[in-house]
Structures are given as structure tokens and as C-alpha cells.
């Protein structure tokens, strides 16, 4: 059933418009600009042609079958009427993008329920309302104008919000900052909810990482069951809104009064093996680390830096996030000693070598040895924005080493943001997880290690 949303053979846009800027126009334009190769049927009683597509007066007038209907209609009432038409036409999947339903209460809530009733009676699945649907290579139903084609990536983002998910999708696609497979905005979740999507994407071989934001959990019992199954196979990153305890609950037991909904959601994340994100940035950052880096089997980290003080702070942050900085093996220390003239430990301070043989050469000769060390599971590489960093990035030195050694690496950038952000964060960031602060990089790596260790332990 979910296939109809993501791989429809035909799609009708009810409320399509020929006026650039209008939502009904953006949706048709986004579909036209995607790789969608099925039939597109704009529906609008007052137009004949939109973006080269023949326009139909109503759904029932469309000659062929319609797999998916996207609606962008001005009022809830008209939307409910369109649902009746969908039932008549035999449509089985509908995305309702317009707002003004349960989220505003009153009549909106009543009409949303009418829509749910029509859907149940006619076996129709509904995404939304108050959402922006799907952003993917094969189809884009978003209300946010897309400037580039979506990558054929391995990450799925799911958001309960409408505009934010659409905006994030547009950003990510534009900057190529994350290898996205699909972004789904599910809005009010009147029917299709996170559990449907989690179960569906859990079974899709081209999806390696699922990252989602929810304001409220639709069905916690099933979420626990499904997330446990999916998170054992692939990382599921979870950001939940409403995480503070809003007032004491009236309960007749100690247990009832302590067990706030936020504590229970947190418990669910932990019990199912999902990964908790604390911010939209983390939702994306963690997905980046998980989708680009191999899973480590342990939490032993090498820190590669150019400045001693940075090494000290990273060491503290690692300890706070459950990561260890072991000594390198005597063999590695012996190799590195020759290059440095001074004893080398972990953090590996590159400064002396850089002054002798330059940055690129230092990286090429030092970084691989430290990363290959059998005492090391992963590395934090700290890059400062200097002229010589630019050379290393442009020659793709770091990417090559990381790919060769096959252990996870996160890059943290310090200083030189104004001049070198485009080089380090944007360019290097297309291939590797690059963070604008030490804490964000260390935290993301700690999540990767935590998941890697758990998965390793659970392997028979």
C-alpha cells in the first residue's frame, strides 16, 4: 500500500494551478522536475493546460487509473469533497497538503475526522493533512520549490512538521550535505503515521539510515515493537518534541505520578535501540555520520590535531560522551616517532611535523598510521581553516585515507570559518561528516560507537 505513495504510476494534483508561486503550481512543477515518468493529471475546473500537462475538470473525468492524489485546496470542506471524489475514482493513496484541520481544532477537527471516515470506508490511505508529502528522486510533492534533483542516497528523513521538513529537504538537496533517499512530511498523521513509514523503510534495501522528528507519538505500543525490529537492522535517529515534563500528572500511584510521557518516550528510544537526537541539526548530523561511515566495533578513539589545547578539550569531551582515548601501540609510536623527533601520544599533535614537512605530507604519513593502529576503532580529525588545509581538501587526501583504512572518522573544524568554511564544511562535507564544533563531532561519533558496539554484541 505504501508503494502507491513512493512509486505511483500516475499522480493527480487536485487544486493544481497555472500561476507561478501558488502551492498548486509548485507541486506540479516539482513533479515535472523530478524523475517521475508516469502520468501527471492536474485537476482544476478553470484551466486547460498547466506546464504542458492537460488539465482535467475533475478526478472522475481522468481517463486512466490514478495511483496517487495530491491535494492543495483552499478549504477543509472542499478537501473533504475531493476525498469523496477519490473514493468514487477508486484512488487508494492521497496526500493532503493544505492546513486548517485538527491542528486548529473546532470545525477543522470535525472535517479531518470526516476524511478519516471516508478513507476507512473506502480503504484509502491518507498522508497529512497539513504536510508537504514526499521529496525523492522519483517524485516530489513538496510545496517548497526544489532547485536540484534529489540524490539517490541512503537516508530517509521523516518529519511531522510540514514546512520545516520541506525546507530542510530543499537545503540538503541544494547543498548536497546529506545523501538523501526520501524526505517525508506527515503533518497531522490522520492516517499514515511514523509506524507505517518505519516499517516500510525498514524493509527497503536502498535505505540505510532513518531519521525522524515527531511532535507526538501516534501509537507508542506499535512504535516500540516496530522500532525494535528496524533499529536492530539499521540506525533509527529520533528527535521528539515536548520532552519536558509539563506539570504533574494526576495519578493515584507513585509510579503514575513519576512516569511522565516524556520519560516514557525516552525509555522507548533506549529500549528499542533508537538514537536520540536533541536538535534538528543533530537529526541531520547523526544521519550524515551513520550514512557515510562504517560502524566501529569499539569506542577507542584517536584524536588528530594541530594544537595541544584542542586535544585537551577533545579528550574531555570524549570522556564525557563515553569514548576512550587509548595509547597507540608501541609499534605505531615507534613509526610516528621517526617523523616527529618527539614522543607521540594520543591526541596525536601534528604541529612539529607540519613545521618540518608541511600539512599535506604530514597527514599522508601520520594520519593513516594512527588510524590503522589496532588499539583504535575510530578517529576525530581536527582541521583548522588555513591555506594549507585547502590544498589537502582539494587533493582529497583525507577522503582517500579514510576510504583506505576503512574506520570511521569525523572531522571537526576550528578557526578560519569565514574564509575556509566553503572548503572544509561544504566541499569536504560532501564526502565526510564535518562539524563546526568539537562537541557536535564528538557527540555524533559517540552515537556511532554506541550503535556499533550494540550491533556487534547482538550479532550471533
Amino acid at each position: 500500500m505504501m508503494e502507491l505513495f513512493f512509486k505511483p504510476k500516475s499522480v493527480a494534483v487536485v487544486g493544481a494551478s497555472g500561476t507561478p508561486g501558488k502551492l498548486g503550481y509548485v507541486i506540479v512543477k516539482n513533479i515535472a522536475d523530478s524523475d517521475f515518468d508516469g502520468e501527471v493529471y492536474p485537476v482544476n475546473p478553470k484551466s486547460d493546460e498547466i506546464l504542458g500537462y492537460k488539465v482535467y475538470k475533475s478526478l472522475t473525468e481522468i481517463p486512466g487509473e490514478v495511483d496517487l492524489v495530491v491535494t492543495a485546496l483552499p478549504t477543509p470542506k472542499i478537501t473533504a469533497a475531493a476525498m469523496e471524489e477519490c473514493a468514487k475514482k477508486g484512488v487508494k493513496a492521497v496526500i493532503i497538503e493544505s492546513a486548517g484541520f485538527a491542528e486548529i481544532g473546532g470545525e477543522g477537527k470535525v472535517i479531518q475526522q470526516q476524511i478519516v471516515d471516508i478513507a476507512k470506508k473506502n480503504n484509502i490511505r491518507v498522508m497529512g493533512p497539513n504536510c508537504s508529502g514526499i521529496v525523492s528522486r522519483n517524485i516530489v510533492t513538496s510545496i517548497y520549490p526544489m532547485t536540484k534533483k534529489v540524490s539517490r542516497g541512503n537516508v530517509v528523513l521523516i518529519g511531522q512538521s510540514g514546512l520545516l521538513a520541506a525546507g530542510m529537504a530543499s537545503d540538503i538537496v541544494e547543498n548536497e550535505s546529506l545523501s538523501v533517499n526520501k524526505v517525508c512530511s506527515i503533518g497531522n498523521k490522520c492516517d499514515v503515521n511514523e509506524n507505517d513509514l518505519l516499517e516500510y523503510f525498514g524493509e527497503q534495501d536502498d535505505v540505510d539510515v532513518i531519521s525522524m522528528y515527531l511532535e507526538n507519538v501516534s501509537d507508542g505500543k506499535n512504535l516500540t515493537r516496530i522500532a525494535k525490529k528496524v533499529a536492530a537492522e539499521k540506525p533509527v535517529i529520533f528527535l521528539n518534541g515536548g520532552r519536558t515534563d509539563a506539570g504533574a500528572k494526576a495519578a493515584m500511584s507513585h509510579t503514575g505520578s513519576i512516569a511522565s510521557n516524556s520519560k516514557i518516550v525516552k525509555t522507548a528510544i533506549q529500549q528499542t535501540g533508537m538514537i536520540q537526537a536533541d536538535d534538528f541539526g543533530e537529526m541531520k548530523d547523526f544521519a550524515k555520520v551513520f550514512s557515510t561511515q562504517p560502524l566501529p566495533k569499539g569506542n577507542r578513539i584517536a584524536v588528530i590535531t594541530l594544537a595541544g589545547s584542542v586535544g585537551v578539550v577533545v579528550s574531555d569531551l570524549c570522556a564525557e560522551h563515553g569514548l576512550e582515548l587509548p595509547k597507540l601501540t608501541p609499534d605505531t609510536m615507534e613509526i610516528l616517532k621517526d617523523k616527529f623527533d618527539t614522543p607521540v601520544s594520543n591526541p596525536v599533535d601534528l604541529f612539529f611535523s607540519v613545521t618540518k614537512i608541511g600539512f599535506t605530507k604530514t597527514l599522508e604519513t601520520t594520519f593513516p598510521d594512527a588510524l590503522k593502529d589496532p588499539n583504535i576503532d575510530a578517529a576525530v580529525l581536527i582541521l583548522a581553516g588555513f591555506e594549507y588545509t585547502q590544498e589537502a581538501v582539494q587533493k582529497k587526501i583525507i577522503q582517500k585515507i579514510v576510504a583506505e583504512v576503512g574506520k570511521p572518522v569525523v572531522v571537526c573544524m576550528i578557526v578560519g570559518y569565514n574564509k575556509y568554511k566553503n572548503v572544509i564544511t561544504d566541499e569536504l562535507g560532501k564526502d565526510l561528516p564535518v562539524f563546526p564544533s568539537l562537541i557536535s563531532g564528538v557527540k555524533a561519533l559517540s552515537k556511532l560507537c554506541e550503535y556499533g558496539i550494540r550491533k556487534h554484541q547482538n550479532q550471533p
Partner: protein
Amino acid sequence: MTVNEIISLARKEKRTVLTEIEAKQILQEAGISCTETKLAPTREQAVSLSNEIGYPVVLKVSSVDITHKSDAGGVKVNLKDQAAVETAYDEIMNSCRGQFPDANIEGISVQGMAKSGIEVIIGMTKDPSFGPVLMFGLGGVFVEVLKDVAFRIVPLEKSDANQMINEIQGKKLLEGYRGQDPADIPFLEDMLLKLSAFVDKTPEIKEIDMNPVFAYKEGAVVVDARIILDDE
């Protein structure tokens, strides 16, 4: 009485709060060991039950209308002989009737005085979305002030029970702090798993407090229990 009979009786009497005796009977049926607790509607019966159970005993007022039994002067512990039981019976009745003139008091529960152990709380509450959730923590000040507790969503796996016990901040106290006996952690895990299995098949129950549970070097026992049913 069986679990179903106890629940039906409460439904018939239009109450959602079970008495301590009912709660313990239900937990016993779920395989969770509780201190032996019996109802004495009269002073004479309190004495004969005390003789039967063996001294020292504890007397507690049995009334669904009195939530905080200690505050109402409704609890007397460590009663060592018949005379002490008789005096305690009268004092409890006077104090509770004085403070709660409208309360329906069915009598006084007589229970064996459990030897003290590490105080633990085990509980259950039902979330509208996630269903039954279990809670584990150290009792007394640890749960009331510090809220040092761990939760798991039902059904629990063995590893969940183990992890939730290991997760609390005061874990060290369970391992035998300053020469104290350690708590029987495998036994507590088993209690959690039994409670999980029981609440999973008993949807009528809304909340459970087993507080305190005394955990010993070997075994553990529920000393006080409270069960609230769902509104019909």
C-alpha cells in the same frame, strides 16, 4: 479469590482502588511473593490471626478511602504479643475514625513483620499510547525526592529487566554498600518479568505500586502494594 473475582467484586462495588489485601492476592497469583496479609474485621480476629501468622506482626487499617495510612495513624509495626495487638487495634480504629469519619473501614489487616532489607519500589502505570510501563527504583527518599528510577515498556525481555536495575544511580546500594547485604538482583529481575507478563495479560489494571519491596541477599518480598483499576 482469583484475579478475575477480585476485579469483578471491585467493579460491582463501583470502586477502582483495591485494598492492600486484594492487591497482594493478585500479585501472589502473578507469582510475586508478598508478606502474608489477612483481614481482621474484629479485635478478636486480629489476635487470632496474629497468633496464626506469628509475632512480631504489623497492623494496618484496611480501607479504600484512606490513601495515606501512616498519616492517618493507621499503621502499627513490630507488635510483639497479644496485648500489643489489642492496644494497636483500638488506637488505629480510633485515629482513623477520628480523622476520616466517612471512610468505609472494612477492618484491619494483619501481616507478618518482614525482616528489613534494601527498600525497593516496583510499579506499573499505563500510558495511553505506549500501554503498560514498568518502573524500578530504590524506595523511600530515592524515589520520592531524587526520582532515581528506570522505566521499561511492557513486554520486557530479560535484558530489559537487567538493564533497568543497572540503570539507576543508586545501583551501588543494591550491591551491598558498607557491609550491608547485597540485594538478590536476579530475583528482582524475575519479579519484573513476572509483573510484565501479568500486566500484559491483565488490561483492566491501570496502576500498581509495590512499595516497599524488601530485597534480601536471597529473595525479596512485597511489603505493601497498591493496585488501581482502569475506569470502566
